């Protein structure tokens, strides 16, 4: 049994933690929060110099050519400090879509840009409120021209490139959909920043008006490719969520030990102790599920869809509980703009919604159970 990260990977985690403690300044986070900057550009540059953006990108495309376990370790640390950078959109979604579906030409043109921090990318799926279903996609790709409207696109203002889920056929079912690759500097792209629940990770509306675009992957495979990308992103994002949840537990613990009421540290009251114990339990369950997801991701295992759904649900629940109850533990202080509590609360909601809501992932998980039971 070897169900843990290796010593090298743990060393990488320590290095990443120290690096981010040094480079990810709370002040810069506040600047992004207040909307004065789209993302923390200094941190983004530092991260790209570390090579993290190309962790799993092959060396031939300018990446580090490491494995997904290394990327999981980095994701956890980025989540811990709420790094206000478009890392998840670029690395978990855009680069993964390229790796999954890109032609050699598309990969050699764009992966090096991602790996060196010169290309921010995203994945544009949803077109408004409600679930993303094959039927809900009205954006059309025809003769290499893309038209439609995408809301809400994560890091949509920051991105230079987007992978867009678009209709290429008349069928309303999955086979009518394909992925399109777009340079967002192209003529006919209009976008605006939207107010987001977590302004440290902004969203945009992007309108495509007869925009130059190319097919990414085979025609009619858009939905299944997207599902594959989402499964992989779910594992990586689970590690971000666990990093965030762990930070919340740490903050709540420190606060409860320092804060005195009724003549003693509030950390000595069972109402607080049991609350923090529950956060700990949820975090450990999530961590264990995420480890299994990491194994499935790094070995491309048959179990990946089930493992990804479990990691996603468990980590979403853990971060939600941790962010909510950490804020509660802080009392009135936790509800002030100055406190970081609301930043974690906001991020927990943003990540919970980023790849589709829990309901959808739970349904997917049970579908996988039905399949594995049938065979």
């Amino acid at each position, binding site marked *: 049994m070897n169900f843990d990260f290796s010593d090298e990977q743990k060393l990488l985690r320590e290095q990443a933690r120290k690096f981010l403690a040094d480079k990810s300044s709370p002040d810069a986070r506040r600047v992004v929060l207040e909307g004065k900057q789209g993302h923390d550009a200094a941190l983004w540059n530092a991260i790209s110099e570390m090579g993290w953006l190309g962790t799993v990108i092959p060396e031939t495309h300018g990446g580090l050519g490491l494995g997904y376990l290394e990327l999981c370790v980095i994701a956890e640390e980025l989540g811990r400090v709420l790094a206000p950078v478009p890392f998840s959109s670029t690395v978990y979604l855009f680069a993964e879509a390229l790796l999954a579906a890109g032609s050699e030409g598309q990969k050699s043109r764009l992966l090096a840009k991602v790996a060196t921090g010169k290309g921010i990318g995203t994945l544009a799926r949803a077109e408004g409120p409600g679930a993303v279903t094959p039927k809900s996609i009205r954006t059309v790709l025809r003769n290499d021209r893309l038209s439609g409207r995408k809301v809400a696109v994560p890091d949509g203002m920051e991105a230079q490139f987007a992978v867009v889920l678009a209709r290429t056929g008349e069928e309303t079912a999955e086979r009518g959909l394909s992925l399109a690759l777009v340079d967002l500097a192209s003529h006919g792209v209009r976008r605006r920043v939207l107010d987001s629940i977590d302004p440290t990770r902004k969203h945009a509306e992007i309108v495509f008006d007869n925009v130059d675009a190319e097919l990414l992957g085979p025609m009619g495979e858009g939905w299944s490719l997207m599902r594959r990308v989402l499964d992989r992103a779910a594992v990586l994002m689970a590690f971000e969520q666990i990093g965030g949840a762990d930070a919340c537990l740490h903050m709540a613990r420190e606060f409860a030990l320092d804060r005195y009421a009724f003549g003693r540290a509030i950390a000595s009251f069972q109402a607080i102790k049991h609350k923090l114990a529950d956060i700990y339990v949820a975090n450990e369950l999530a961590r264990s*599920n995420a480890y299994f997801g990491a194994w499935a991701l790094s070995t491309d295992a048959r179990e990946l869809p089930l493992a990804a759904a479990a990691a996603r*649900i468990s980590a979403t629940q853990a971060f939600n509980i941790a962010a909510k109850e950490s804020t509660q533990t802080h009392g009135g202080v936790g509800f002030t703009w100055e406190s970081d509590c609301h930043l974690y609360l906001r991020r927990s909601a943003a990540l919970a919604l980023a790849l589709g809501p829990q309901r959808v992932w739970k349904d997917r998980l049970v579908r996988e159970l039905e399949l594995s039971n049938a065979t």
Partner: protein
Amino acid sequence: MDFEDTDAEASFRTEVCAWLSRHARQKQSGDVADIAAVPPTMDDARAWQATKAERGYARITWPKEAGGLGGSPMQQIIFNQEEAKFDVPSGHAFAIGLGMCIPTLMAYAAREMIDRHVKPALRGEEIWCQLFSEPAAGSDVAGLRTRAQRDGDAWIVNGQKIWTSGAHYSDYGLLLARTDFSAPKHKGLTMFFLSMKSHGVEIRPIRQASGGANFNEVFFTDVRIPDAQRLGEVGQGWTVALTTLMHERLAVGGGGGGMLDVKELLALARNLEVEDGPALKNAVVRERIADWYVRSAGLKYTTYRTMTALSRGQQPGPEASIAKLVVASKLQDLAAFALELEGESGALAGEDAPEHGIFQSGWLSAPGLRIAGGTDEILRNIIAERVLGLPQDVRVDKDVPFNELPGGR
């Protein structure tokens, strides 16, 4: 990251498997569901225990001198995994003795006492129980009132114990009693062991809310225990008890209640109709199944993390402490949900209920699981204090002589 044995583990597994094949029959796929089968008797269980003891497999981590194998915790896990594939009687009756009582004896008893008791316990010839909890001392076990009074080279014991698993078939018991009522509660305790056949010991089974009777009340009336059967110094009983309780958490935390899980709920939902069609197609049902699945899977992979630490020769991390807390409430919620799915037939039980009543019996046993071996509340305190390092609650009784404390009901 992988789930493979190391070379040494793999060869141990092969060795164990070969030995098991020589001494037992492999389970067939239908065996698990065969609830009508005749349960193994205590004699069967003792015989299997003795067979294991001959090879050192009865307690793999114990030193060879004590009848163990001198092996690692990982080897014990491997043995358990392989043994579970064979149709052998459960060693349940010996778990408390070998898991808690005998390790305490080995730490505190005189050489000749150890020589006298360890091997018979190991071979299943003598069964032990643990006599700690009392009607007025459950979670706060140090508040116990059973009195042991010195009388020459012996002690006279009067009082009552409760929740004693297996007392009715035990030969010996580990007894925590109060020897000084004027000292604060933790400081007036002393540990003993005694024959359960001693004059003045009366055992009465307790019928549980679930209908079963695994626990007992044990009454002591002028029971005489030789001073040679005292473990540790007079007044040091609490320190000795901590050794026992540390072993209890290792034993209880490992599992329990795992017989009813998502797999059974899936099977139920597959075969039932609800208002809008098959239960398994209902969105609410699917959501709940997913919720419990991630808890079960989370626990399973937490165990894998613990095993990894053991396999690397490290101490397991604190994550091992969450198991019982999660298992017990999951069982309670999952079973209650299954009853709802069954509709009005959910109100039936046993063979009259759907699925042989497994959800009803799970639902009825869950409250006990949330209490036994550390209540949910105590487990949360343990996580908060030992894992998260939060301060203990205020202890108003800590430095007060025991006989000046208010007794309550």
